[in-house]
């Protein structure tokens, strides 16, 4: 358990450093950077590499946005196993829905509660 925290910290930190390098060295906008990371996550999962990685790093792999791509592929593949090609479309949001729905729900609650501070 304690090594888990350590590796979550290190791996999570490293993914963020990759993002920072994309900001500062490649001069990408945040939107470009995050989109690229999500696509990278999806491709890694396509090769079956993301899951062992998540086993190893725990939240260090599931909290960064890369896991969003991984979760989308996962949902699609799960459905694809039972429903074939159609499942690819229908299963996409099966696993990820919680992250997106939480963000939407809290976003709206936030809009009800808060004003931008500037």
């Amino acid at each position: 358990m304690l090594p888990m925290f350590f590796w979550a910290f290190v791996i999570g930190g490293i993914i963020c450093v990759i993002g920072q390098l994309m900001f500062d060295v490649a001069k990408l906008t945040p939107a470009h950077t995050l989109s690229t990371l999500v696509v990278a996550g999806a491709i890694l999962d396509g090769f079956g590499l993301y899951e062992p990685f998540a086993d190893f790093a725990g939240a260090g792999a599931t909290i960064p946005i890369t896991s969003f791509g991984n979760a989308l592929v996962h949902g699609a593949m799960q459905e694809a196993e039972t429903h074939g090609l159609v499942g690819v479309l229908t299963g996409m949001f099966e696993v990820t829905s919680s992250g997106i729905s939480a963000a939407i729900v809290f976003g709206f609650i936030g809009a009800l509660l808060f004003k931008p501070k500037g």
Partner: protein
Amino acid sequence: MANKKNKQKTPQQQQYEQLEKKFETKRPVLKNCIKAFFVGGLICTIGQVISYFYIYFFHFTEQTSGNPTSATVIFFSMLLTGFGIYDRLGQFAGAGSAVPVSGFGNSIISAAIEHRTEGFVLGVGGNIFKLAGSVILFGVFSAFVVALVKTIIMELGGL
């Protein structure tokens, strides 16, 4: 891309660019990376604590605890965004606070808060995905392609 751009520039513009570069404050890449590493790592460690919390006290396993964990992280992100702390954290940590899912939450929540003056339907509704939209679009589309390719390969392999 960059090459094409340079070709379009007149010699005068290129000369100016070189002059201007001399005075341009360089981005402190190393310092930024260190800050991103520690803040990003810390957010992930907090995520790990939260996920163990769900494992320990609720009916979540290591695999399923991911969902409530990201929801909780986004919830905290909402509070920090609403109280005007997340933008300051972002200036400090850069990718350290943008890459974790809390940054995804922040991009949705900040857009929602920002546009409430234009009404809830057209303002909040129309702009909530202003920043996160590209992440969702490319996430979904790339996942579709990856899953499609993988499924086709598996079915062909099965034949």
